[in-house]
């Protein structure tokens, strides 16, 4: 009896959670290609109505979005590469027991997770290094996340047998070569997890460009999105220009539809990548946070 009640509670909670989380996502998708008047009147609930792709068409001709897209891709690709190139070797060193200095280095790293200089001193440091308003600030900033470093180090310590290292050492293998040809290929799981963490961080970064960039041509997608989605400097002027007031109000009517489409276009790349990496999540997160 108690067990049956338990099963019922589990089913009810899981269905409730599923609906509450999935429905808004589903709604955005169907609203992005439905007639926006019908959406606004609350007619679009389960299925798209008055199907049209006006929102997407508008996005395809908006150069700001593509510039933002391009900038975000550049920052994400190079930023993530730099992250991995710095994090993996450091995690390897810190995982080696014979590396005595790790007892000093590790606490120095961990301390920065809990205590920082704060917004203003960091801003002034970037200013003094002449990194403000350059693409470099978006790539270099956050080059190492101590959290990801700990996840990776713990994975190296616990999942790669030490015997391998001894064997390699006997064969005259250097640390460089051992890391490149033994450790890295064996660590695909943790590397994909931290690569995803880093890439999501770069892709969704809003705070750093807000603070450190002011040229229009450097702005990443998130800043453009904010202008379109939240400040409504959207398409009222863009679509209206050259076509008179009538076209402006026409654009306003469709503003929400454009917003839905923008949301989808900007989020899809992450949602496409993540199911492939999902199977590694639990392992990666578990190793890093529970044992770390």
């Amino acid at each position, binding site marked *: 009896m*108690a*067990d049956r009640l*338990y099963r019922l509670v*589990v089913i009810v*909670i*899981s269905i409730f*959670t*599923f609906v509450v*989380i*999935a429905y*808004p*996502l589903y*709604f*955005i998708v169907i609203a992005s290609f439905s007639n926006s008047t019908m959406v606004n009147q609350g007619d679009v*609930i389960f299925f798209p109505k008055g199907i049209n792709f006006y929102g997407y068409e508008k996005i395809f001709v908006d150069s700001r979005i593509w510039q933002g897209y391009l900038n975000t891709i550049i920052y994400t690709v190079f930023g993530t590469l730099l992250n991995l190139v710095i*994090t993996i*070797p*450091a995690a*390897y060193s810190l995982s*080696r027991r*014979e*590396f*005595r200095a790790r007892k000093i*280095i590790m606490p120095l*790293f961990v301390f*920065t997770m*809990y*205590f920082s*200089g*704060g*917004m*203003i*001193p960091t801003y*002034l*440091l970037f200013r003094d290094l002449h990194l403000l308003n350059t693409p470099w600030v978006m790539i270099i*900033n956050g*080059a190492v996340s101590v959290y990801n470093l700990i996840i990776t180090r713990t994975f190296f310590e616990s999942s790669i047998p030490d015997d391998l290292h001894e064997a390699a*050492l006997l064969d005259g293998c250097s*640390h*460089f070569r051992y890391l490149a040809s033994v450790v890295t290929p064996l660590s695909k799981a943790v590397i994909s997890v931290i690569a995803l963490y880093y890439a999501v961080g770069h892709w*969704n970064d*809003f705070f750093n460009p807000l*603070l450190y960039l002011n040229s229009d041509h450097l702005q990443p997608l*998130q800043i453009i*999105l*904010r202008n379109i*989605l*939240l400040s409504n400097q959207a398409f009222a002027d863009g679509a209206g220009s050259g076509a008179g007031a009538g076209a402006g109000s026409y654009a306003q009517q469709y503003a*929400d539809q454009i*917003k*839905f489409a923008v949301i989808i276009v*900007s*989020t899809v790349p992450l*949602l496409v990548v993540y199911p492939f990496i999902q199977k590694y999540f*639990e*392992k990666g*997160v*578990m190793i890093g*946070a*529970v044992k770390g």
Partner: protein
Amino acid sequence: MKSMQKGNYQLWILVLPALIYIAVFAYGPMYGIQLAFRDFDFSKGFTGGDWAGFKYFEQYFNSPMFWPTLRNTFVIAFFSILLGFPMPILLALVINSIKNNKYKRILQTTVYMPYFISTVVMVALLQILLSPSTGVLDLFLKTFHLVPADVNLLGNPSAFVPVYVLSGIWQVCGWNSIIFIAALSTVETQLYDAAKIDGANRWQIVWNVEIPAIMPTIIILLILNMGSMLSVGFEKTFLMQNSLNKPVSEVISTYVFNVGVKSNQYSFGSAVGLFNTVVNFMFLMLANSVAQKSSNISLM
């Protein structure tokens, strides 16, 4: 022995880039904290101005914005932890007891998904879904009388904290459950079998087997959450802020941005920021020592 030393030299090279990064970009700004105790002078930079002692701290403590920013930060952080912390644990227990693997996978994939939505998009979603004239969610909540019909969920100051906290749970609850699901997966099947033989029902298994098994994880995460209690997310607060909700949405970090960066009051901004960091750090230490005394679990 020789090869050991050679090896160590290689290990130093491998760790060096990270070491340099941390030294420059994490400890560099910490060195710059002295700005909070100096009068910032543009021509002299970081550490050139004259010492000002605690002038800027006093200025903040005595300013009319001290209590509002501190209170708003605390209220948002408190409710985020109070409501947001138990949810992922509950969700993990639920997911863990689903036997149907296909349904389990679909559920997990779905609940992780909102985590990948950026803060900008998240806030835009709230604005679209909660719009008093056209929002679907607003319509739903009002049709079922879950909120009073005359409340504007985007502008009303009393709606700001619930909207902030609940949308935060919507976004990260699934993601945060991963770690508890992972911890639950390590519970040995013998423990379940033993409990069943002792006649435990499913509820008793949750209380006596599963929760004790994930308790260390719960405590460590709680300590970590306490440590970042006052670093209430700048991005979301900043993006949700409007003239109507400003009395409840101005938190310490948005205040630092507004007075420090936007109005170039670098010393004052640094002092406010440092106050925030120190209080955070004290919370972390406090939570850590309480946990250590009560259960022998600690971070350090």
